[in-house]
């Protein structure tokens, strides 16, 4: 029984991280219709900034997380301005390729600045809590609580605040948004900043139980894409549910089927689900 519980816990951890990353991706997709391949690089930069803040400046873990969120939000906002804004009218492949250019730049830039080697982030929550024979690493619990709190906050922001609605409105009709007085450029920058922030927080949450290196984003980003197409691109609940599905599939799949094939499990699941429901689990508009 406790192994099942352990996998369950792990699934929530993975699902939480995946969802946070996928949320940023799906928001940006909704606004600009750009599959932002550089999103994984935002995630990576977030982890590095947090490490540097903790290592170099001796910042506290939470301060480092906020710092990383701010820095990556700025990086993302600048990327929007310099890379995606000029391409807002070009549809299709162009922003995709530009995103790849941005990815190459950020990844090699990180390597030039911080080196290619694996780095570790310390955590103040390294303890292991024991509940009746069940080992629960504190950092994992923290991830679950923090990730789902953040998701709830984001959901409330999008559905309950006017500023949140502007993001959704922009996603559906840019000119229409401008005509009711929404400034599309500002919303685009804001959305990018939020997406960068989510990626940085996810990275800082996850880094203490993982490794930090320039290519670390590539692992997460493919999963994040699987998630948002599973949930329906641009759909916020879809990203959360999709993240959980992949988290559970990987965790239980690796345990009960095979670690060797666990990646295939996630992708095969996607193929099966999309074969049955081509528009994803959440039809766009189910917001």
């Amino acid at each position: 029984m406790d192994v099942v519980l352990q996998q369950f816990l792990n699934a929530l951890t993975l699902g939480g991280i995946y969802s946070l990353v996928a949320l940023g991706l799906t928001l940006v997709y909704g606004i600009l219709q750009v599959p932002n391949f550089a999103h994984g690089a935002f995630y990576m930069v977030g982890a590095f900034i947090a490490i540097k803040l903790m290592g170099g400046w001796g910042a506290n873990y939470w301060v480092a997380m906020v710092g990383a969120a701010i820095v990556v939000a700025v990086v993302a906002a600048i990327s929007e301005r310099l890379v995606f804004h000029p391409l807002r009218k070009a549809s299709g492949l162009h922003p995709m390729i530009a995103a790849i250019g941005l990815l190459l730049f950020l990844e090699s830039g990180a390597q030039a600045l911080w080196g290619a080697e694996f780095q570790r982030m310390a955590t103040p929550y390294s303890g292991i809590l024991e509940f009746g024979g069940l080992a629960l690493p504190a950092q994992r619990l923290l991830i679950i609580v923090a990730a789902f709190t953040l998701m709830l906050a984001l959901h409330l922001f999008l559905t309950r605040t006017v500023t949140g609605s502007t993001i959704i409105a922009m996603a559906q009709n840019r000119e229409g948004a401008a005509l009711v007085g929404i400034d599309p450029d500002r919303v685009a920058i804001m959305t990018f900043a939020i997406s960068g922030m989510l990626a940085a927080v996810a990275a800082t949450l996850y880094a203490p139980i993982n490794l930090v290196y320039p290519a670390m984003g590539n692992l997460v980003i493919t999963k994040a894409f699987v998630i948002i197409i599973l949930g329906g691109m641009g759909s916020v609940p879809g990203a959360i549910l999709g993240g959980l599905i992949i988290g559970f599939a990987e965790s239980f799949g690796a345990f009960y089927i095979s670690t060797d094939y666990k990646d295939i499990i996630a992708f095969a699941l996607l193929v099966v689900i999309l074969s049955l429901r081509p528009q994803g689990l959440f039809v766009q508009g189910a917001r």
Partner: protein
Amino acid sequence: MLKWIEGRSGWALLAALGALFPLFAGNDYRLTVMSTAYIFAIATLGLNLITGYTGQFNMAHAGFMAIGAYTLGILTVDYHVPFWIAFVAAGAVTAAIGLPLGWLSLRLKGHYFSIFTMCVGVILFLVLEKWESLTHGAVGLMGIPGPSPIGPLKFETPAQMYYLMFAFLVLGAWVMKRITHSLLGRTFIAIRNGDDLAEALGIPLMRTKLLAFIVSVLYAGWAGALYAAFVRFVGPDVAGAQNTFDMTMYMLVGGLGTVFGPLLGSIAVPWLTQMMQFLQEYRFVIFGPLLIALVIFFPHGIAGSWMAWRARRAAAAVRPVAPATLPATEAPGA
């Protein structure tokens, strides 16, 4: 009429340049770069058919290239099948695998199709890596033989290999030109420009898209087979997303939805990266922004920008006040 001759002579000039290249290449290194570029150019031509002409961005393209490469490798290395028979089989196997995968993915549209095929690409990669009894797993296939002689033609030296790749490229470009400039090509373009309307005009969407998909992966499969014969080694990495991205970049740098563009891009970009080798690990710090700038300032690629310029001149000649409109290379995907 004039345009027709211009087109002909332009292509003839290119062919002549290609044929004479070994004479002024100077060394095998340049031949190797060029031969590799040709191999990827063939695959990129295929990618351009489904993406540039039909409007469906297939991100599993490198996966199909890998299928061709592995088919050739496995048949020649493990089953000792003669090279050219294995080569034909590489195309057949790629098409046979492409058919169900294409059918499954083409039910999706736009970015859904792209991301879905990206996942198909990952699956192909994982299968190649995990199915050890067939593919030799992560270790890869080594000792793949080079092309066996056809009559008096031997393919041993780099120059001979170069001409082989060149011949395939010419054939591939010629066939592609025929396809895209025929009624069939128009059908593909119609789907790219608006699939609802195309369907209302009696074009069977699935069948037509699937046809474009199969032809496109055939190019990938055969390019993969040539790759295997050239590098003599294939590992699962051939199927990696990196290769698809590279080909997409070639296509875009040259110009989407033209035959000439992908050729240009596939040749220009590798030379550019070769020239930037001295930057070593910092090369992408420069290359990334360069790519972004290109996409922003030359959205139609080199060939596309040139054609747009000509179209604008032609339009200006017809009507003094012509609205500035982009050339007919509408980007797909949205």
